[in-house]
Each structure stands twice: as C-alpha cells, then as structure tokens.
C-alpha cells in the first residue's frame, strides 16, 4: 500500500494546510469586517434610534475589538459553530449542511461532463494539430470559455424545460431520497456549467499533449517504429496525467464558484441561493459561513490533487 515516504508526504501536506486555513478564516472575516458600512445600522433598520443601534452593536459583540471578534468567531468555527443567521435565526452550519449536497451533486456532475467530453476533444485536436477538426474544436472551446454560463442555463431551460418538457425547469430533489429524480434535476444545471469546463479541459489537454508529442523523445519513439496509438497512450497521456489532474482541481474550484449563478436560474436551494439571499439582506454570518465553507472545500480539493499528483509522479514533493 502506502510506502513510508508517501505517508510522510501526506503528513507534511496536512501540516502545510493548517496555516492556509487559518489565513483563509482571517481573510474571510477581515474582508467582510473591514469594509465600510456599519452592520449594526443595517440591522437596526430604518429610523432606528442611536440607542437601539448601540444596543444591537453590543448584542452582536460588534463593539469589541477586531481581534477579539475574530478570535471568538474562529474558535466557534473550529467547533463547527458558524453562529446564527440574522434572518432565520437558524445555525449557519445547519443551513450550509442542508444546501451543500444539492450544490455538490451539480458540481460533481458538471465535472464528470467536463472530463468525459473535454478529454476526447482535447486528444482529437492534439493528434491532428492544424487540421480543420483541430480548428473547429478549438473554436468551440473559445466560445465555451466566453459564454456566460447562466445565459446558457436560460437557453437550456427555454429549450428543454419550457418548449420540450424533458427536464424540470426549477428545483431539486435530494439524492438520498430519489437518486434518479435528483440526477434528472441536476442534468440541465450541470450541462450549463460544463460548457466552460469542457472548453478548459480540451484546451489545456491539447496544449500539453501537443508539446509532448512534438518533443525529442517522442520523435525517437516514432523513429524506432512504435505505433502512433501506442505512443499516444503509453507516452503521451501518461505524461500529461498530472497536468490533467491539476486542471481538474482548478476546474472543481471554478465550477463551485460558477454554480452560484446557475443555481439562481434553476431556483435550486443550494449554496448559491443561500449566499446571494444573505448578501442582499446583509446577513453577514451566513455570508461569512458560506464563503468559509467553500474555501475549506477548495483547500481540501487542492490537497487531494497534490497528494494524487505525488502518487502519479514520484518526483513531485520528494525534493
């Protein structure tokens, strides 16, 4: 199984993550706290007296120093307590746990689509560089990167939910309750998200494959008479697998962000709708909680990618 060296590596990586998470909490808390605008005034509502504002400031601990507020928040966050929503009064952590599975399903499905379609497209383009096929795939990829994904989502809704009622236009179903229905609800949002992902994967894969396929050592392989397909599979793709893994990691990060807007189109009760509503209503504990939860997920993905990369390529991380 795992060698001594890989176990040591995993341990080291886990330790490296700690300061990043601490810094992330600091940035989440600081950005939202240090910006102008007095939360207490907002909370008190219009026509509030100065006394009422002062009361609210004290109630939420807003009159204490920045570091005390931060320390209190971070200590509670460490114990899974992200304080309560100002609007619903519900614990933020509970709201996040309720919304996250919906978002996760859409993002995971979009990631699967991106890789399942982007990889073959990238390989096709890279093996025939300069041809019309390569040109059209890369042209489509340029469109995929530039298209606003929530607009694509609207087109999908108009076509596949309103004109032809193949898929539901709005809402979501819990995966645990009914997996088939949950997937049916997630397919349109995931497709809208995947356009950019497919384009990104195809571009990056083509770029790194073309570089490897035109290198000296591949020319030598051709010279010694190896079949082009075996060069592609054994030497080309093996060499770009780490690249591809990195791209997939970055993509997961980007999909997680993009899903926020796409969720609004489908009125999906996920993380996106949670944070958008909170931002409009200035429900700052929820905003902080959602941003923090998403950062933790991204850091975990990055860690996973790092570890997998070092397993795929033993040269990484052992220097």
């Amino acid at each position, binding site marked *: 199984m795992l060698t001594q060296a890989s176990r040591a590596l995993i341990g080291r990586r886990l330790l490296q993550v700690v300061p990043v998470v601490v810094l992330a909490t600091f940035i989440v808390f600081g950005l*939202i706290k240090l910006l*102008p*605008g007095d939360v207490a005034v907002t909370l008190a509502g219009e026509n509030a007296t100065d006394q009422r504002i002062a009361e609210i400031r004290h109630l939420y601990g807003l009159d204490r120093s920045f570091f005390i507020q931060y320390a209190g928040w971070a200590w509670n966050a460490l114990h899974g307590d992200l304080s309560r929503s100002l609007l619903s009064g519900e614990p933020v952590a509970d709201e996040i746990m309720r919304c996250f599975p919906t978002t996760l399903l859409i993002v995971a499905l979009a990631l699967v689509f991106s890789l399942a379609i982007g990889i073959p497209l990238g390989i096709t383009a890279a093996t025939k560089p300069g041809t019309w096929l390569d040109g059209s795939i890369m042209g489509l990829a340029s469109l995929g990167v530039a298209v606003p994904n*929530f*607009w694509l989502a609207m087109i999908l809704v108009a076509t596949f939910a309103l004109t032809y009622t193949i898929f539901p236009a709005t809402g979501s179903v819990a995966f645990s309750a009914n997996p088939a229905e949950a997937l049916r609800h997630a397919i349109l949002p995931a497709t809208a998200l995947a356009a950019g992902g497919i384009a990104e994967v195809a571009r990056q894969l083509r770029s790194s494959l073309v570089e490897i396929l035109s290198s000296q050592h591949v020319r030598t392989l051709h010279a010694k008479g190896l079949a082009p397909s075996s060069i592609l599979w054994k030497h080309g793709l093996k060499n770009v697998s780490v690249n591809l893994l990195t791209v997939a990691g970055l993509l997961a*990060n980007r999909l997680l*962000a993009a899903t926020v807007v796409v969720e609004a189109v489908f009125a999906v009760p996920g993380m996106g709708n949670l944070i958008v509503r909170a931002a409009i209503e200035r429900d700052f504990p929820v905003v902080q909680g959602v941003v923090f939860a998403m950062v933790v997920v991204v850091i975990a993905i990055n860690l996973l990618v790092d570890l997998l990369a070092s397993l795929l390529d033993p040269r990484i991380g052992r220097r």
Partner: protein
Amino acid sequence: MSVATLIPTRGSAVLPLLRRLRRDRRAVVSLAVLLLIIAASLLAHWISPYSPTAQDVNNMLSPPSQSHWLGTDDLGRDTFTRLLYGASASLYAAFLAVAVAVSLGVPVGMLAGYAGGWIDDVISRVIDTMLSFPAIVLAIGVTGALGIGLTNAMIAVGIVFAPQLARLVRARTLVVRQELYVDAARCFGAPTAHILWRHVLPNAIQPVIVQVALLLAVSLLAEASLSFLGLGIQPPSVSWGAMLARAYLNMELAPEQMYPPGVAILVTALAFNTLGESMRTMLDPTMKRR
C-alpha cells in the same frame, strides 16, 4: 553605445506589441469589434431615436419589428436601445474591476518580488490563500458588505482578481531584478521607487497587458452575473446583465428577449479573450505551436 540605450524604458515595452499585433488577423478583428462596441456605446444617444427608459405601452414584449429592431421588454422599452446603453455600463464595469485589480495587484506584486525576505513570504502566502477562494463567491460576499450597486460590485471583483496579477508581477519582478541594468541603476544610486517605476515595471508589464485583456473578459462575465443576481446595477439603469435578469423573468412569454444581451456579452468576452491569446502567443513564441 551609451548606457542609456542599454536600459529598456517603458515606451519600448508596449508599442512594439501593438505594432506586431497588426500582423495577426484575429487580433485585428477582435480589436475592431471592441472599438465598434465602444463607439456604439458612446454614440448610443445619436444612434437610437428612443430613450433607454422610454416605455411604449402599446408594445410590451413585442417581437422584433421595423420600429423596434430587437423587440421590446416587459415595460415596453426598446431592446436595441437598451443594448447600446447597456454596453457602456457593462464596459465601464469591466474596466473598473480591472483597474482596481491592476492598481492593487501590480504594486503588491512588485513589492513582494523586489523586497524579498519575509515581506515576500507574507504576501505570497496571502496571494496563495486568496487564489483558493472561489472568485465570484468572494465577490458576492464583499458586495454584500460594501453595499449593493454596480460600482461596489466591480470593486469587489477587482479585489478578488488582484492576487492573480500580483502573482504574475511578482514572478516577473524576481527575474527582472537580477538583470544587469537594474544592478547598474542601483550602482548609480537610483532610489528604489525610481528603479521600480523606470526599470522593473516596464519590463514586467507585457504579461500584465495579456492578463488584463483576459481579465476584462472575466470581469464582463462577472458584471453580468452580479447584475443578474440583483447585486450589481440597480434599475432603472441598464447593463447587459440587468437585461438578462429582466429577460429571465419573462422567459415563458418572450424567450427571444434573452438573446441580444447574451450574444453581446459572448461576442465582447470572445473579443477580449482572442486579443489576450494573440498577445500571449506573440510574447511567447513557444506558444505558437500550441
């Protein structure tokens, strides 16, 4: 040869790039498209006979016609006119976000790269951490704190994109500060600010220009997203994102209303991206094969 000719200056970094771009057909087309859109947004008042807020109550959600080329929205406002006026808000938003990102990211990146030591360590850690934030989510959070509105939203987007530029500039600065001409300037007793402004910046600026073009596309999409979510531009002002939000509400009655602003965003983002890619290929000849 005098010392002065050995020391590259600012003008020499940007002008050749533009001159060489003329030979790239795709870059020329992109630039032409962008200039056309900018011109259309500036001349909106003279191009269209309508006001962007004038309501034609007899023609609500009407399909394209002679009097309304792209139809009207749910309040009877001319979609073509709103597209022209929306262009200026959307482009302003994109340029504002990038301006914020440049004015934060470039100095911080230069400082980290040039100072080195613990300053570099601290800044680099912060940059790395901020890069692991999902960009638009952080922008939504910051907008919530700054208060809703187009300018606030785009300042938030700029803050979120600044680390990308800072990392790029830091990497370039690390290379440039080893160069002989920087050593020479230092030996002449030039103050640090002078070295950074006259020598480091000009030689680190080219990759920044590429990144700026690409970031303009991303910022345009961010404006559309934030305005669509109701966190950006507020009615009665109009941007392409706000038009999409309006079209979304009336999707069942008039689905064709969502195409003009969507296509406008797509074309503009595509033009910025193509321009950026062309410049990148030009700066890095090894990219040509790819």
